[in-house]
């Protein structure tokens, strides 16, 4: 069964270069091929979740253990990896299908699809690898493709946003490489399971804590936490809309939050001070992101600041779980909190992806992104309006959409762990999110009369079929995902992911086999 693992990386990589070759002869090849590859990978990840036993381990090159020391490069799929693979491939497929109509107006279409496939291959590689240097290489592959995609329309603002993003991203990658150097100095190995064994057996000391702090800064910038968030509003609002939904929906989770979870739970020993730092960073992101978002008048900039706030919810949920585990508290509270955090991860990918696709649809028809000049679109673009309404209700936490359940679980876990200030802040920011999205709905779709558009001479119709299909399907997924609270479905998808993090010490036993 371990023949499946390399397919997640090899298929998008081969597809990217096939599109580069064949695309110079046949113009429309890249569009359909990308959607086919990502649909196949979605089907493969659904098959692995429902039918196959994990963890699945592959030793690249077939090098077996030598006197109980792992010398091969490992690729591991366990509960957390397959959960993230599902998120990446689903949102990736819908963004690729949406961009069939959206990217038609650019001339360099094949470059776009090549870079898209490379980004998907890099993200799949990060969640599948079991070796910290492999994580660094795949992370750079995904990040460099995203730098080029942000600057895809070569106008003034896009180039400036891409340059700022690149300088900060390169800085954080250098921090990550420096901390990999420190870890190798201390433990003489690069395998995640083996490093966790070596840290337990030797005296940790100052060098490992220093490596932890530098690692947190590097990956905190990739995950857009406060105070490392300065690149996010410019980059996510200047990218083309399907790329914005991929960046905000998947990239900051796959190369930011996932790596923090994997390394701080399964590799390092959970300590009280680092857990406190992570929880404080999560709370600050939640609060400051929400307050900065509500004053914006550009749709995509508001959505980008709101991403910072929602990622703060995820890190808050996980941080409370870490705090409880580090003090050897009640394991059921930690399970509840981490379940809430991971569930909110999936929900945010779906509804934030949908919101960015809606903003792209509005921009495709009218060419305007400033909310003060928009309005009165509800009769002319019914599909966009209704899907945007369901996404806004979902992100504000209104039942029966999925956002309500995940936020409720995080707030209940915070109250049970006796952090009352955090739960009050979470409820307060939820109310501010509701206000912010009521503002978006009112000013974009409902404010003015529809004859305004005919007077301005812009003809506004509904968007083409492929864009409608993606938006409707994601809106349906918003409702379907609230079924993940039902215990029987939760045990297949969500509980294995949480178990990997709660039983943190068993990762090395499962991978190495002894």
């Amino acid at each position, binding site marked *: 069964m371990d023949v499946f693992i390399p397919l997640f990386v090899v298929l998008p990589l081969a597809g990217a270069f096939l599109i580069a070759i064949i695309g110079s002869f046949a113009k429309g090849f890249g569009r359909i091929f990308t959607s086919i590859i990502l649909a196949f990978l979605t089907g493969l990840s659904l098959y692995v979740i429902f039918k196959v036993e994990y963890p699945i381990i592959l030793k690249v090159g077939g090098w077996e253990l030598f006197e109980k020391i792992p010398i091969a490069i490992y690729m591991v799929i366990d509960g957390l990896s397959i959960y993230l693979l599902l998120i990446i491939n689903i949102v990736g497929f819908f963004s690729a299908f949406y961009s069939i109509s959206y990217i038609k107006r650019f001339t360099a279409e094949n470059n776009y699809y090549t870079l898209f496939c490379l980004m998907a291959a890099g993200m799949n590689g990060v969640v599948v690898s079991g070796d910290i*240097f492999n994580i660094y*290489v795949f992370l*750079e592959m995904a990040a*460099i493709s995203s*730098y*080029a995609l942000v*600057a895809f329309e*070569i*106008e*003034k*603002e896009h*180039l*400036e*946003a*891409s*340059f700022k993003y*690149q*300088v900060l991203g*390169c*800085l954080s*990658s*250098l921090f990550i*490489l*420096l901390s*990999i*150097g420190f870890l*190798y*100095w201390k433990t003489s190995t*690069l395998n995640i399971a083996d490093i966790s064994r070596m840290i337990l057996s030797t005296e940790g000391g100052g060098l490992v804590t220093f490596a932890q702090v530098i690692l947190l800064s590097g990956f905190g910038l990739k995950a857009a936490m406060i105070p490392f968030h300065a690149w996010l*509003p*410019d980059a996510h609002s*200047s990218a083309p809309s399907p790329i914005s939904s991929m960046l905000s929906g998947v990239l900051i989770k796959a190369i930011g939050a996932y790596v923090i979870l994997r390394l701080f739970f399964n590799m390092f020993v959970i300590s009280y001070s680092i857990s406190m730092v992570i929880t404080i960073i999560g709370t600050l992101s939640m609060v400051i992101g929400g307050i900065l978002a509500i004053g*914006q008048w550009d749709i995509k*900039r508001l959505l980008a600041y709101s991403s910072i706030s929602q990622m703060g919810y995820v890190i808050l949920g996980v941080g409370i779980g870490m705090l409880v585990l580090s003090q050897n508290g009640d394991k059921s509270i930690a399970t509840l909190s981490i379940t809430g955090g991971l569930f909110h991860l999936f929900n945010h990918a779906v509804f934030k992806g949908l919101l960015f696709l809606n903003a792209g649809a509005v921009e495709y028809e009218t060419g305007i992104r400033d909310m003060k000049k928009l309005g009165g679109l509800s009769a002319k673009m019914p599909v966009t309006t209704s899907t945007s309404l369901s996404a806004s209700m979902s992100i504000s936490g209104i039942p029966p959409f999925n956002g309500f359940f995940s936020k409720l679980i995080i707030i209940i876990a915070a109250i049970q762990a006796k952090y009352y200030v955090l739960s009050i802040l979470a409820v307060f920011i939820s109310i501010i999110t509701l206000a912010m999205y009521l503002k978006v709905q009112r000013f974009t779709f409902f404010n003015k009369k529809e004859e305004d558009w005919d007077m301005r001479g812009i003809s506004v119709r509904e968007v083409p079929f492929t864009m409608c299909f993606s938006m409707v399907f994601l809106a349906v997924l918003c409702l379907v995902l609230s079924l993940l609270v039902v215990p029987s479905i939760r045990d297949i998808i969500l509980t294995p992911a949480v178990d990997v993090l709660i039983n943190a010490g068993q990762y090395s036993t499962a991978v190495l086999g002894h």
Partner: protein
Amino acid sequence: MIVYFLCIFLFLVGLYGVVTKRNLIKIVIGLAIMEYSVNLFLILIGYVKGGTAPILSNEVTKRVFVDPLPQAMVLTAIVIGLATTTLLLAIAIRIYKKYGTFDIREIKNLKG
């Protein structure tokens, strides 16, 4: 021990360049200096006292080699650094064409 501190000092020199300079190209050069310092640090970690180059051949009699794994890591890191620097420079020359200047105080279209 002194050598590792010198590597970190070179890293801080590059960081000073990225943070203080106003010309886009000088920022790119600062990032390149930081990359070189991290690569140097990685290779110095693998030094074994009295070791020689890790190449296996028929004439070698000494059996203490330096660690070859950081050398493989640094090869990969050099290639990644090349790709990053190339993309930064390509965007920098397009910015020069659009804005007419390399000064970052003039390039401020996005605010808020």
